[in-house]
C-alpha cells in the first residue's frame, strides 16, 4: 500500500520519466520515452499494477505524433496510472504489449482500426467494429467526416433543400 507520492518516488527512481505528476487523488500521470515503455509496463506490473484497464490513443496532428496512453490500476494501492508515450505519426509503428497483458491484443486491434497504428508482434489486427473499411482510419484528425458523408451517403431531399444547408 503506497500513496501517490511514494509511487511517484518509485517511478522517478526506477523509470527515469521525462515528466510525472499527480493529477489528483488516486490518479498519476507519467510520460515516458517510447523505447522505455515496455520495460516500464513490466516494471509496474511487477509492482502490483496488474490491471490494464485500456489503451487509448490521441492524434496530435500538428506535432505529427500519436500519443498512446496505457491506463494501469493497482488493487493494492488503489491508484490509476496513465502511462503516456509519444510515437511518430509516420510510419506509426509501435511494439505490442501482449506478452505482458494478453488482453492488450484486443485494445491494440481497436487502435489499429481507428488510428492506423501498427503494433509489431501483434498478428491479430483485423477489423473489429468497422466492416470493409477502405478509407483513412476514421478517428484520425486528417479524416474529413463531413466530406466522407457527402461522398458516400445521399441526403434526404426536402423540396430541393438539402439537409446540410
Amino acid at each position, binding site marked *: 500500500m503506497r500513496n501517490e507520492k511514494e509511487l511517484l518516488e518509485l517511478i522517478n527512481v526506477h523509470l527515469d520519466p521525462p515528466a510525472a505528476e499527480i493529477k489528483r487523488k488516486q490518479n498519476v500521470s507519467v510520460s515516458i520515452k517510447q523505447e522505455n515503455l515496455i520495460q516500464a509496463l513490466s516494471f509496474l506490473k511487477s509492482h502490483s499494477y496488474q490491471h490494464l484497464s485500456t489503451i487509448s490513443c490521441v492524434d496530435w496532428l500538428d506535432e505529427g505524433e500519436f500519443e498512446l496512453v496505457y491506463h494501469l490500476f493497482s488493487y493494492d494501492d488503489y491508484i490509476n496510472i496513465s502511462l503516456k508515450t509519444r510515437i511518430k505519426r509516420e510510419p506509426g509503428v509501435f511494439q505490442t504489449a501482449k506478452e505482458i497483458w494478453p488482453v492488450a491484443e484486443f485494445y491494440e486491434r481497436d487502435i489499429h482500426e481507428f488510428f492506423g497504428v501498427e503494433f509489431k508482434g501483434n498478428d491479430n489486427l483485423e477489423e473489429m*467494429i*468497422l*466492416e*470493409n473499411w477502405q478509407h483513412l482510419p*476514421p478517428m484520425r484528425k486528417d*479524416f474529413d*467526416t*463531413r466530406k*466522407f*458523408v457527402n461522398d*458516400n*451517403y*445521399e*441526403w*434526404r431531399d426536402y423540396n430541393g433543400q438539402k*439537409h*446540410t444547408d
Partner: protein
Amino acid sequence: MNNNFVKGSWQEILDWAQNKSINMLHYCTGCGAIELPPTMTSRYDMSRFGIGPAATPRQADMLLVTGYLSTKTLRRLIYTYEQMQAPKFVVGFGSCTINGGMYWDSYNTIKQLDKYLPVEIYIAGCMPRPEAILDGLLKLKKMINNGEADGYKRYEENLEFYHQNQEAVLGEVQRTQ
C-alpha cells in the same frame, strides 16, 4: 361469382386479420428501444390493438427499427428482413431513420432507411413519445386494412434498386432472398 372476386375478398379477409394481429420484431440497436417498454406495458398497452412482440423474424409481421443504423447493423437488419415472411412491414422509428438525426454527419450511420428497405411508415421524433408510436402503428393498421401497406411487394419489384443501394454502402451482401 367469378374466381377473381373470391380471391379478392379472401385477400380482404386476410388483410383484415393481419391488421388485427401484428407481431412486431423490435430491432433495438438505437436509443429508441427505451420508449417501447412503456408502450407495451400497462400505461399504454399496445396489445389492445392486437400488436405484440415476436421472438424471431420467422414469426414477425412488422420490423420496428428503433433509431440509428450503423452500416454494420444495417447488414444484419437486411438479413433479418429477408428472413421474415410476407406480408411484412417496416416501420422507421425516430429521426435517425429518416435523415440521420443527430448522427447526420457520422461516417458510419446511414441517413435514409427507405433507400435500403421499403419503409411503410416513419414515426418522427427524437425520441417519439409512446403516444406518437401508437399513433403511427394505428396508421399502419389502417394501411394494412386498406391493402396499401405493400412494401414487401415494392421490395420484390424494385429488388435491383434496393440491392444497388445496399451494396453501395455495404460492399458485398450475402443474401437469402
